């Protein structure tokens, strides 16, 4: 597969006001209102996203759209490119071809190609700003080990958003309360269980008031009895109207919480639909085989 040409700007982006405009300028439906889902322009749009590491094509022409307030569960066998897809959304990887747009704003590049057909990369400060609008939670937590739970959560609001320490502490404490860890504020990550660490990591991401959250197998490094406490936090977030993409093998969670389930295999999005459609009536043999292995 070759993707020499970058995709042309889609018609709906025609009246672009100012490419440097702050993301979020585009009309984002209030995530709190249920009526928003489906009706408005999608919050996350992937168009023909392709990623190659040398000769290895890890993502092949992926299209995906997620409406504001929607929960998408991404499933697929190991090595199918799920993590890479998430990482392309918050620019931890640069797509080889294709476009990622959040709230209508192209990520990492100017809105329109230059006269010679090349795309102008954004300066690193602006890329950092775009990333700061997207929360990410990792399989292995990646908390800052030299900071307490509270300091972990306060760090980015102070350093990136320029909040005052008092303000950051106040909201960090209320986030800790929300994930059920108010009594662990002064513990270092090494003094917390895996499930507690992951809940702190979720609070750390939420402290930036992100527009959307990406979860890359948030429970697969946890002992089975700790999975439920993390899934409970995710479920509560989903009910609060957070737009989320969750890579997980927890099919029960997918059935209960997901608005949309996406099945990836070999770098391609093979099937997508509601949990009922995908999990109860899989069409492809690959998905049937995969479901048999995880259910």
């Amino acid at each position, binding site marked *: 597969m070759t993707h020499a040409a970058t995709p042309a700007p889609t018609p709906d982006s025609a009246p672009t006001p100012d490419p440097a405009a702050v993301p979020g300028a585009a009309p984002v439906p209030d995530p709190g209102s249920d009526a928003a889902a489906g009706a408005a322009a999608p919050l996350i749009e992937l168009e023909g996203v392709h990623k190659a590491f040398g000769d290895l094509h890890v993502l092949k022409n992926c299209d995906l759209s997620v409406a504001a307030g929607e929960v998408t569960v991404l499933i697929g066998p190991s090595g199918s490119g799920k993590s890479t897809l998430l990482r392309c959304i918050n620019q*931890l990887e640069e797509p080889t071809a294709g476009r990622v747009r959040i709230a209508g704003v192209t990520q990492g590049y100017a809105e329109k190609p230059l006269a010679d057909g090349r795309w102008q990369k954004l300066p690193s400060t602006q890329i*950092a700003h775009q990333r700061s609008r997207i929360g990410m939670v990792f399989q292995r937590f990646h908390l800052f080990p030299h900071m307490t739970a509270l300091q972990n959560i306060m760090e980015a609001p102070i350093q990136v958003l320029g909040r005052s320490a008092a303000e950051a502490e106040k909201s960090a404490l209320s986030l800790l309360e929300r994930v059920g860890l108010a009594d662990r504020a002064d513990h270092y990550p090494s003094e917390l269980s*895996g499930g507690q660490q992951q809940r702190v990591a979720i609070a750390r991401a939420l402290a930036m008031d992100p527009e959307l959250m990406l979860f890359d197998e948030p429970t697969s490094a946890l002992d089975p009895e700790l999975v439920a406490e993390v899934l409970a936090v995710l479920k509560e977030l989903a009910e609060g109207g957070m737009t989320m993409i969750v890579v997980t093998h927890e099919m029960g969670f997918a059935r209960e919480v997901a608005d949309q389930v996406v099945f990836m295999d070999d770098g391609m999005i093979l099937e997508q639909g509601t949990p009922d459609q995908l999990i109860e009536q899989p069409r492809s043999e690959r998905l049937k085989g995969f479901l048999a292995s995880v259910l």
Partner: protein
Amino acid sequence: MSTQTPAPVPAAAGRRAEDPIPHRIRAKASPRPGTWISAVVVVLVVLGLINFLITNPVFDWATVATYILDVKVVQGVGWTLLITVLSMVLGTVVALTAAIMRRSENPVLRGVSWAYIFVFRGTPVYTQLVFWGLFTVIVPKIALGIPFGPEWFSFSTRDYFPAFWAAVVGLGLNEGAYLAEIFRSGLNSVDKGQTEASKALGMSNGKILRRIIIPQAMRVIVPPLGNETIGMLKTTSLVLAVPFTLDLTFATNAIANKLYAPIPLLIVAAIWYLAITSVLMVGQYFLERYFGRGFDDRPGGVGPAKRSRQSAVNRAGTTPKDSLPEVEL
């Protein structure tokens, strides 16, 4: 062996009813004559040594006592401390810069950093000190301008570069080359996930380095940094090469030559070096404790806590043995 095997005592009914473990093993240590013999031998040797130190007239403890607080000696201690601290500070700044340059994507910065380490680690510190001593002869004038073009201003180096600064710069730049490798391994030892997590939060590269990477790297950098500082304390005795003539070794040597009594003044110097080293070790302890926060060394903890600091230091390889920096251009 006739050692009685301590068989589990049968339920001593009633006798020790308060013990929750009724069949507790009452063990008797197996005899270890070797331990006792070696301890006695070592104690005897040490006593002999102390006797030798006290009674041998060559050591002349009266002279040691007279000169240990001599003005020249105490001033020498001050200068030695000052040179140690300043050259370590310079070395640390240079090393951190060089280590960060080695991580840069810019090949020119990487190359310059590599060349600096190559030259300053590959030549004797004595040679470098002589060079810095001659700096004002080699470079009598520094001018700012365009090479081969106009000159905007210039100054004579002799006015601004006394022997003291030549000593500090010489020791600092030499030390920086060693520390750069230590810093580089330290920075590399921090999990890549830390950078990714901070990027995902929208932190800038500078902040990631300052707030996340360096504080964690310090945990494996501080122990070798402590060793290097103690090494530097002793290396300052080479500043005679500059020549800088106020440090502790020079001061005690000068007195020794005047008195024709080298040995008591060597002891004076040794006592002072040991005293300073002890103070530095206390400082190192507190630094290690500060940067080790969040990393629990007790066994059986969770996550990073499982690994001890020493194993982290070993893994990071901040105490490299190789004499040349790894080529990685």
